[in-house]
């Protein structure tokens, strides 16, 4: 599905990632951890095609990232749901319209999707907040709205960057349960986090693979968590 092979990424003269290889199989659940600035966000961006590796190959759904044009990237993004730490909403649109944005930009009929939208809003606990604007939401509500937007297209993979960074423990557990549920539906999940307690909590619900970025390289972790 998404594959990185001996990938390196440099920016501003410095190498951020070196010799990274990773295969994201369908239905797998990965945690990506490491200290702040280690390159977790960069690795996620490589995984959804926002960055082009300076060395090695990134393959998205069978296509080499370097060979993909803007349209190809857009098509790949419709199969990868992304949850940013800062959520990245359009602040002039309501929560409902932000969650429906992937449907809008892909030309889907919103009227036909209303039932799905309503069901999704209920599932993430935002049924009562559909008309609110993003700045009016709490941190937890924003993260759940971002998750809802990421999965509205029923993507193959969901990449979440510090989704619990700005929420309390209860809310992070709630978000984790949503991600676990999605994984049980067959979605590939990658969560970048430095919250080891979250990883430990997840391990009790689902089989996960924990990756750590250290010294620009990707390592497998497990026993020490």
């Amino acid at each position, binding site marked *: 599905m998404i594959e990185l092979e001996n990938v390196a990424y440099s920016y501003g003269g410095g190498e951020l990632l070196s010799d990274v290889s990773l295969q994201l199989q369908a239905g797998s659940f990965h945690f990506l951890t490491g200290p702040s600035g280690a390159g977790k966000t960069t690795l996620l961006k490589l995984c959804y095609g*926002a960055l082009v590796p300076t060395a090695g190959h990134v393959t998205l759904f069978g296509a080499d990232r370097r060979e993909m044009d*803007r*349209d190809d*990237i*857009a*098509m790949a*993004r*419709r199969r990868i749901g*992304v949850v*940013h730490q800062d959520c*990245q*909403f*359009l602040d*002039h*649109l309501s929560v409902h*319209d932000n969650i*429906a*944005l*992937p449907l*809008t*930009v*892909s*030309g889907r009929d*919103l009227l036909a999707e209303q039932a799905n939208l309503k069901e999704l809003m209920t599932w993430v606990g935002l049924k009562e907040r559909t008309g609110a604007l993003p700045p009016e939401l709490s941190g937890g509500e924003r993260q759940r709205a971002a998750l809802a*937007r990421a999965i509205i*297209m029923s993507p193959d993979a969901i990449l979440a960057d510090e989704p619990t960074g700005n929420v309390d423990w209860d809310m992070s557990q709630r978000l984790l349960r949503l991600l676990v549920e999605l994984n049980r539906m067959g979605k590939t999940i990658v969560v970048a986090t430095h919250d080891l307690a979250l990883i430990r909590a997840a391990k009790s619900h689902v089989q996960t693979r924990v990756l750590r970025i250290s010294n620009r390289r990707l390592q497998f972790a497990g026993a020490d968590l």
Partner: protein
Amino acid sequence: MNLSPARFVEFVMGDAQADRCVPPTGFTASLTLFSAAAMAFLAVFALALSMATGRLADRWGSELARSSTIRISAPEGQLAAQTNAALRILETTSGVAASRALSRDEQRALLEPWFGPDLPLESLPIPQLIEVIEAEDGFDPDGLRLRLAAEVPGAVLDDHTRWRRPLVSAASGLRALGVLSVLIIAGATGAMITLAANAALAANAQVISVMRLVGARDRYIAQAFVRRFTLRTLTGAALGVVLGSVAILLLPAAQDEGGFLTGLGFQGLQWLWLLLIPPLAAAVAFAATQAAAVRTLKDMP
């Protein structure tokens, strides 16, 4: 963007959801609307100038091209004889359709703008004028001059060429200037729309980033901007045309004394030319915004 008929209809009808993705930006909206209105207003006057000078050039060209004047200056006792002699020559000149001596009243009317209505023409040594109308194939002015010089010593043939050509040339030049002004206005409109579109695209970098994140194609993003700027320009230009038309209608009516300046405007079907200004302005905006959007989106990471 390849604007096939189907895509044109789709473009005009728009996508309400897509339009809402790009937040309204007051500054660029006002700038585009005002620029389009101002440019369309100026375009109306440039077109009016072009039309008026075009009519003038045509009139001067057609009215003067086929008429000539013979001026006979002779002592009082010989004037009538020389006039008759000149008329006889003209009757036998090939290429002359008609000729006649202007009456005293007609000559007084010609001088009236300068000397007033009470000019005592009889007491002044005013030359006799003969109007000559050419036939379709025209006459040989040099041959006629030679015959007149031989038989009517006081006659001078003025075939108007000397002053008609520069006048027609000047009127044609003014007409070209009007057309050039319209082209410059179109270029300036394009430049201003490009600036406004660039400002809007830069101001919405975050919006573009989010739209890309959720799978929007660049063509879709560009269209949201292009449609907005095109419709704004169309609206502004329509407003400018209405205001310009009203201003033209309020100008003084055409009068012979005022020359072409009071005839600045449109006649009959010429008003229909104004209907072209809004769609042409919209086409300029479409092209300018499309180019700006493609360039900006290409440069954005």
